[in-house]
């Protein structure tokens, strides 16, 4: 196991070992591979001591930055995340268990690239950017262009994910995250739905993003549903239509956690649930502002 003392050392080691090295941060994925004896790489590169990468901050221009070593627990406890991206708090509280959330990192979830990676759908709808660094320099990639297939990403073997960043959720923008797992804690998603929408003048969304987790080889956007949502007013009557569209965009497989049909229905129900809750929130808001 290689334990670099600085980001520079980590990047030098990555450059040297490339495909032969597996990057370890929270080690919640790597430990399972080690136990099962299916780690393919010859070396481990433990970056957990690079404290300079453990941060969550808001820049002067308002963007939110999550360093590669920030854990889910760090995010849940962070005022910056609570105030500017509560969808991540809602999401991360459904993820794994308190113990795992104190180890596992957001960047690790991106790098691992599971279609059921629960950090990914909300970062899709927040239009997040991933920062990568290697000896040849730095580059930025939109989260949505990062995933190329089942557990495959655009990350080159000599690149390290250093940060994920996004714009805050502003006033007049609404979000939700809904997930179905086999139980409430420590359960991998059977299906999940993340939503971000910008309310226009009047009861309609002028812009909307919907991401679906665990129902395709990668997390996907439900673009037809997004289009339908912004095409008309946001009313209780239209919730069924939009949710149905979402379920049609899912391309799920059947596995030990659920059949493809079950997953499609789950997407439909989760979307309905989330959208109906948004309608309630809007109603409460109107009642409060008119009284």
């Amino acid at each position: 196991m290689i334990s670099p003392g600085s980001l520079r050392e980590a990047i030098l080691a990555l450059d040297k070992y490339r495909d032969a090295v597996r990057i370890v941060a929270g080690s919640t994925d790597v430990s399972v591979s080690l136990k099962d004896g299916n780690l393919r790489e010859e070396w481990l590169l433990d970056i957990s001591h690079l404290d300079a990468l453990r941060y969550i901050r808001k820049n002067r221009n308002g963007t939110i930055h999550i360093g590669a070593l920030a854990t889910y627990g760090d995010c849940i406890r962070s005022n910056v995340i609570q105030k500017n991206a509560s969808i991540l708090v809602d999401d991360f509280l459904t993820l794994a268990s308190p113990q795992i959330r104190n180890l596992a990192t957001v960047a690790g979830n991106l790098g691992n690239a599971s279609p059921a990676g629960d950090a990914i759908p909300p970062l899709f709808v927040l239009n997040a950017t991933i920062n990568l660094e290697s000896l040849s320099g730095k580059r930025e990639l939109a989260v949505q262009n990062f995933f190329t297939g089942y557990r495959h990403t655009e990350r080159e073997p000599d690149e390290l994910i250093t940060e994920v960043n996004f714009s805050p959720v502003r006033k007049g923008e609404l979000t939700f995250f809904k997930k179905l797992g086999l139980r409430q804690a420590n359960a991998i998603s059977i299906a999940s739905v993340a939503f971000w929408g910008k309310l226009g003048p009047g009861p309609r969304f002028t812009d909307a993003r919907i991401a679906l987790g665990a129902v395709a080889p990668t997390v996907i956007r439900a673009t037809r549903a997004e289009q339908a949502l912004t095409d008309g007013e946001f009313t209780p009557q239209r919730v069924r239509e939009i949710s149905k569209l979402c379920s049609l965009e899912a391309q799920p497989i059947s596995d030990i956690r659920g059949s493809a049909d079950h997953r499609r229905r789950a997407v439909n129900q989760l979307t309905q649930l989330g959208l109906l809750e948004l309608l309630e929130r809007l109603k409460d808001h109107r009642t409060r502002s008119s009284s």
Partner: protein
Amino acid sequence: MASKSVSQISGSRMIRFKLNGEWVRARVHPANSLLRVLRDTLELTGSKPGCEAGECGSCTVLLDGLPVTSCMVLAGQVEGREITTVEGLSNPRLDPIIASLVEEGAVQCGYCIPGFVVAARGLLRSTKNPSRQAIRSGLSGNICRCGGYSMIAKAVMKASRRSFTGGHKHSRLSR
């Protein structure tokens, strides 16, 4: 490529970390789990191996004050860090969580209990006066196969009032 064993991947090295308040040194395979180092090398067997896949919580320890499953932490990663195991909690007096578990009759076979005690300690460190729901979420990473959850949660609630009112001097067991 055939997968390699932990010792092939990591070789061995000396690590130094703070364990239950004192600095210790140990020669380890850095890719071995902290749980294995605690139990097999340092002979602290309070942290229990259950699933060894991060799902049952029976091996919970505090890492820099936060509860984590020690089966998921690599030994090489604790260099310079602070670890508290269940053995470190009752010094000098019986921990109020343990006292409450005994008083409430919350322990059946007992295998999961050290994990619950440490997870509860982690919860009470960050949440001074937790609600029932906060206790349930705080303990959601621990599995009890005897099914004693409600009594365990009740005991932790009792312990939280004790910690909150300044210690556990009312415990029969602490004298």
